[in-house]
């Protein structure tokens, strides 16, 4: 059962990482335009290099 000492922090840590990632996405307004993001992958503007 000693392995729990490692596994529990690891599982919590991974979960927290996901939570932080979600916060970051929310703060950087990535959920503001789901329709547009869905369509933007089809535009040819960004194909070879990011738009300057």
């Amino acid at each position, binding site marked *: *059962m000693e392995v*729990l000492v490692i596994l*529990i922090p690891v*599982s*919590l840590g991974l*979960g*927290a990482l*996901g*939570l932080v990632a*979600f*916060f970051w996405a*929310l703060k950087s307004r990535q*959920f*503001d*335009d*789901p*329709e*547009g993001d869905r*369509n*933007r*992958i*089809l*535009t*040819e*503007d960004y194909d070879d290099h990011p738009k300057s």
Partner: protein
Amino acid sequence: MSLAENPSLAACPGCLAAPAEAVREGEAQKGPQTIRLSLPTIHCAGCISGVERGLTGAPGVLSARVNLTLKRVAIEAERGVTPEALVGRLEALGYEAHELDDAALAATEADREGRDLLMRLAVAFFANMNVMLLSVAVWAGAEDATRDLFHWISGAIAIPTVIFSGRPFYASALGALKGRRLNMDVPISLAILLAVGLSLWETALSGRHAYFDAALSLTFFLLAGRYLDHRTRASARSAAQELAALEVPRAVRLGEAGEENVRVSEIAPGDHVLVRPGARVPVDGIVLEGASELDRSLMTGESLPVFAGPDVAVHAGEINLTGPLTVQVTAAGQGTALHRIADLVAVAEAGRANYSALADRAARAYAPVVHLLALAAFLVWMWISGGDARLSLNIAVATLIITCPCALGLAVPAVTAAASGRLFRKGLLIKSGTALERLAEVDTVVFDKTGTLTMGAPEPQDLDGHDAGDLSLALALAQGSSHPLAQSLTKALEARGVHPARLADLREVPGFGVEALADGQRVRLGRAGWVGTEAGGVTATWLGGEGRDPVSFAFTDALRPGAAEAVEAFRARGLDILMMSGDAPAPVAAFADRIGISQTMAEATPEEKAERIAELTATGRKVLMVGDGLNDTAALTAAYVSISPASALDAARVASDIVFLGRDFSPLPDAFDTAGKARKRITENFTISTVYNVVAVPIALLGFATPLAAALAMSLSSITVSLNAMRLR
């Protein structure tokens, strides 16, 4: 107002064609500005890049970013770039674009409340999953030290989460308690806090049962309901705000440097303002020069245009029909009559907050029962166990948790979200959270006439009664004018295949009519007085001239599409129908006959309309008011629930609970039906959660409830309730 009558568009037709003059010199402020445009027609990836590329190529534009979800584009541009230039550029590329007023949009751009809720929801989800994982181990049979460790870890996760994520509930519960009321959040907060507190105590005593997972699931499920509720209302509200933002208040000021296109907020009393034909009067003032006719239907409900010449007072919101007017400003912005009435509405709005939502009514009946039950459980078990406080408290709290209105909390938002989503797709914006509940109870419908049941656009009547010579003369004269009556007459006569007579020397006299020479004789088409006769009771234009008897062309207002069907549908559902109008008795009676409404009220002032609704309410009627004008706003506010078309004045839209987009009236009976169904679903959901409580409560009271049972019961009831709500879609 339809977009064509939007003052910002009508005010500056030249700007649209001149994108090259985009950069105006000599603006004082520096630094980039943000311009927002509405793009109602964009729908695909090609549109996004087309718009963005087209805009970034314009002089002075730094960047442009399309939001396809909101159908808007945000443009960073240098000072001096005008929205008109960018709109022109986009229209040249084939994209419909309209300027949005930034101030009116500010609230929707940053949906702070929504993001805050989402953040709390994410934290609750994270904590819930982790604690659930640990709880599964405990349920699976973890013993002694391991179990205690798991409980402690769960507690360490749950306590900060419950404090952070549960805040919306605590705040609302505290607010209710301070106002000596009970709402749904009181039992919710109590259950969450007691569950965590008791679990902490049990953990400290190495007890077997801890309810951390239950407290967290409760928080998570209820936050999900709360977020759902917020989302539906936010999308309706943002659409409604966009309507307001589309009407950028602009005016043409006559300064020393000639005509200037400025924002209404920059206009001061004493300025001279030019109002072009077709534009809405932006200010209150007195006419200095020019003659024209004003359409006051939005302000007073009169369908007949009113003459305006020098020294006539004009008011913001009226529409100038025929000739340009120079107006000396007496009041602008906040000081106008339009604004004062809008402010009255804002005050009256607060009164409607007295309606208590179904959920709160349920909570009021439910909370005392549950709390008394838990207290009784505690006392009875104290007596049975001979003073074992720990056991008794455990059972009491288990009762509270199991009966906690998880399903009740979801019952209403899940249904309103589904119903509002369905109506939103039909073009109805549900602005108020309780609008659907109230709509379902309505038994009387009151319609405004002009602009609501009618389009506010006249249609000629009885053309068969005129002789062919008159018709061809009238057509020839009408073709020479842009007055709405003339244009409507032209359209109707052309549709009948009438050929225009040959005329010479045609000229329009703004505010009066058109005159010309036919075979050397003067003929006129226009106002009764000008043609040489007395005006009758109905909207009409007169044809007369040297040596002829004046003949009248009578007009009626064109019926709004779907209006007759909607009236019929409401009647078929057993509702009383009433029509109130500020218009004269004759046109009101004629119109009522046409659409089949027996109860009417003509020449009603705004106060009389509101009083009549108050009278109806006093006799126990639940009134639905449908109206669009400034003269309706008081009535809209006084009614139990109110609806206005998107073409209504901003003040009227603000006053109503539901706004319908598009011209067609037919979604209205639909909304009524959906509201009825939604109410039925809500009641079903209440029943489901009650049934589940009836089963669960005895188990809890007898002391058999475990955290596992609580978790199962809670999830099951929440899912059942949500699925039931989904049936509405």
